[in-house]
């Protein structure tokens, strides 16, 4: 019997993988940075536990999962709205974004997400899978990193960090020694409001000039529905009709969207690619590094965490901003989160 702390997967949920801040800097050999799809929730989760900001965590998709721990430790679940129960001698319920202690042998059950698409389970000290190309994140399509390069299955055992004295239970169920309710609520409500945005802010894309005016006009005023064909590589969008006559509406879509295919070129997260059928694809964290369709707009980095939380059938629209605004908004968001966390 080993003494190293482990977490065991009892129920993996729909798609659960080990993720961290990703591995930027390998686009020259075709490897995308990847990492957590909602890096805001992921990073805040680690900070709430006193972990390093970029400790590895579990990313769960739409439904949660059940996990058991070999040692006393502390956990927090951030991201989409869900319920958490700890089942041991008695059953305890606790809220998302609230760190909790958990004892050896107890099971943590994360319920289905009522809002948002992804939840992050952070554990004290982080998940200690090996570093692969300077990151612990799972590259699911290429099959490397994380836990054996794949999503988790029942029975998997993952080495985790050691909890510190601060994380021990000492009768309290909530880790109230280092966080008071008011501070947690301030951080939670701030993150939740950031992630609730559905008017995605975009800057002009590199190929916007190649789009027909009718398509551009429709693009700015239309609502788009997230298709269930979406994954960590991209969100597929289905254009929703606007309040004009059906015929006119059809004309502004479809084959006439743009110049069509072009020689493959480098792509980035947030790029809104438009294939010939006029149905946009928003590139997500695990996107191919190159693409062959024109990019009409690019989702500003301030709204990248939102992309990771969009559920199938939710509706989004696009709001055009300047690149200077986009940079300012990104910096403001970082500063606000730091301010909220600095009291932690």
């Amino acid at each position: 019997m080993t003494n190293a702390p482990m977490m065991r997967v009892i129920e993996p949920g729909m798609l659960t993988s080990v993720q961290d801040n990703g591995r930027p800097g390998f686009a020259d050999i075709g490897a995308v940075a990847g990492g957590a799809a909602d890096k805001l929730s992921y990073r805040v989760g680690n900070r709430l536990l006193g972990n390093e900001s970029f400790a590895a965590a579990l990313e769960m998709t739409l439904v949660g999962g059940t996990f058991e721990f070999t040692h006393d430790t502390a956990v927090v679940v951030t991201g989409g709205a869900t319920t958490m129960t700890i089942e041991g001698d008695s059953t305890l319920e606790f809220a998302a974004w609230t760190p909790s202690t958990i004892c050896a042998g107890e099971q943590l059950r994360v319920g289905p997400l009522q809002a948002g698409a992804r939840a992050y389970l952070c554990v004290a000290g982080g998940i200690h899978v090996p570093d692969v190309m300077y990151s612990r994140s799972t590259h699911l399509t290429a099959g490397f990193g994380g836990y054996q390069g794949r999503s988790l299955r029942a029975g998997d055992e993952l080495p985790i960090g050691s909890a510190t004295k601060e994380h021990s239970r000492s009768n309290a169920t909530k880790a109230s020694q280092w966080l008071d309710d008011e501070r947690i609520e301030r951080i939670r409500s701030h993150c939740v409001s950031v992630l609730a945005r559905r008017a995605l802010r975009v800057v002009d894309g590199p190929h916007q000039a190649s789009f027909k005016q009718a398509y551009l006009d429709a693009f700015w005023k239309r609502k788009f529905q997230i298709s269930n064909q979406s994954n960590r590589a991209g969100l597929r969008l289905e254009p929703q009709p606007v309040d004009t006559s059906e015929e006119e509406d059809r004309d502004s879509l479809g084959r006439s969207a743009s110049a069509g295919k072009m020689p493959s070129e480098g792509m980035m997260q947030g790029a809104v690619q438009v294939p010939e059928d006029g149905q946009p694809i928003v590139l997500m964290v695990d996107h191919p590094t190159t693409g062959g369709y024109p990019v009409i707009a690019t989702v500003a980095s301030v709204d990248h965490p939102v992309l990771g939380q969009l559920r199938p059938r939710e509706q989004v629209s696009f709001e055009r901003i300047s690149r200077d605004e986009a940079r300012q908004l990104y910096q403001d968001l970082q500063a606000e989160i730091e301010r909220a966390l600095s009291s932690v």
Partner: protein
Amino acid sequence: MRQHRCKFEISWASEWHLRIRIDTDNTRTQATFIREVFRVFKPTTLEGLINIIPGYQTVMLEIAPDGRNEADIESIVRRMLDDLNFEQTNVKTRLVEIPVCYDEALGPDLADVARLNQIDIPTVIRLHTSATYHVHFIGFAPGFGYLTGLPEALATPRLDTPRIRVPAGSVGIAGTQTGVYPTQSAGGWRLIGRTPRVMFDPARCHPLSSENPSTFLPGDRVRFVAIDRDEYERQTRGVVQA
């Protein structure tokens, strides 16, 4: 003597991504451009540079502005573009040999590629192994090399319906392109064989390693070398044992 000046288009693709496109249809010049950008643009020479994302005739520079405005960055980048060397006289390039087993069990579209080009299978193999290819750039998926130099007689359209599962190491043809699937994936290329070589191995990336995870690197010359089924099996076992 003043070197030939190339025209570049510079534009922003996001608040962090500067896109540079070289205005030429010449694939050799495009490939030189990509290779030269990787030589000249480094985090040490361009402050805030995080990533370079190549394409056929574009690169995307991911840059954290660090207080500089767009015009500052653009003028720094324009000055650096002047340092690109398009007079490739004594550039050393690697020759990478890729063993391929051209067997219908491993290359299920071999017969179709022959039939569609009105040649026989031995001719497909002879043509595919006689050309020298160039790695234009690596992209799409980890270790996937965009190769130029496929003999015209082998150009074959993609499958109408892509396969759900193409094994790692599969060698295929799509239009005028040829390439190797580095990892198992879905794909619509016509498969003519398979290599036992591991095309992408993240374990090759560590601080004491001079190896690269990617077998192909931009600028490499590539030859495909035919091996028989026994040799393929032998080398595949070697890979598994290693």
